């Protein structure tokens, strides 16, 4: 994971993170509905070549840490109708995440 071609992980399980509210064009893996939302890192999945780069035949290096981030459904959907403890886990690359209070 700490090979020269991989970016060092900045977050650990339990850290609060926010997904950048960015809307770049191209092949993006961060779902639209998660942009700007906050959650908690569930686990670090490893580091993988950045698919947003690979989609355009570039190497995707250095590899980006990939996390599973757990969001409360009530934080994702303003009108979520289920119980407050319902959650959604989404795989998000580190370059899409910022530390959240």
């Amino acid at each position, binding site marked *: 994971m700490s090979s020269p071609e991989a970016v060092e992980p900045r977050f650990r399980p339990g850290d609060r993170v926010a997904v950048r509210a960015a809307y770049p064009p191209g092949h993006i893996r*961060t779902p639209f509905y998660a942009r700007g939302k906050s959650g908690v890192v569930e686990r670090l*999945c490893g580091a993988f070549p950045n698919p947003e780069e690979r989609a355009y035949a570039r190497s995707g290096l250095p590899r980006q840490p990939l996390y599973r981030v757990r969001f409360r459904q009530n934080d994702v959907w303003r009108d979520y109708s*289920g119980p407050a403890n*319902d959650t959604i*886990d989404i795989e*998000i690359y580190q370059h899409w995440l910022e530390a959240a209070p």
Partner: protein
Amino acid sequence: MTADHHHGGEGATRDHAASHRHPARSDLDDTLTHYRVMEIALRELLIDKGVLTADEIRKRVEDMDNRSPVQGARVVARAWVDPEYKSLLLSDGGEACVVAGLDRGPYKLVVVENTPETHNVIVCTLCSCYPRWLLGLPPDWYKSRAYRSRVVREPRAVLREFGTEVPDEVSVRVHDSTADMRYLVLPRRPQGTEGWDEERLAQLVTRDAMIGVSVPRVS
């Protein structure tokens, strides 16, 4: 009575055929969409240049079609009877596949366990990511926009439409498989299966239970 005026037997069938022609049914595979043309062009190029043979491509398609949820069911049933195997499955899904004599698979496998507190359900909102080496090809509904867009937003309503009622005190946990992981739900072992062996248990484990839109039931 003339020769062409029969009231039954072979002649009646012939008359029916002559007077009652069904229109030719249109072929379903005659739509050469852009992507079909691209696929054919690429495939023919690869064959012409000697990169692949037609038989290799056919074999690969056959292998994909031959995979089925039976592999996933074996893994689940083993986890139900063997606590050590279950903890391996939950901590390192790929290794657990190898131990069970299956492919490790091309992706990391994340196995999520249903408990009395949590019900898990899998989706890929971007496309159709699916642990094909354990479950075979995904069902059409899994790839539909309706399932992909709705199950993240109103999972309980979607589960209800699949006949799965999750009580409010049980959390519904959706997993959106957007990148490099593949997911499998480890369902709860149904009551009334005490003493069953792996093989018998595996028969209860359905594809939909491993996606999380259903749960195993003793019929």
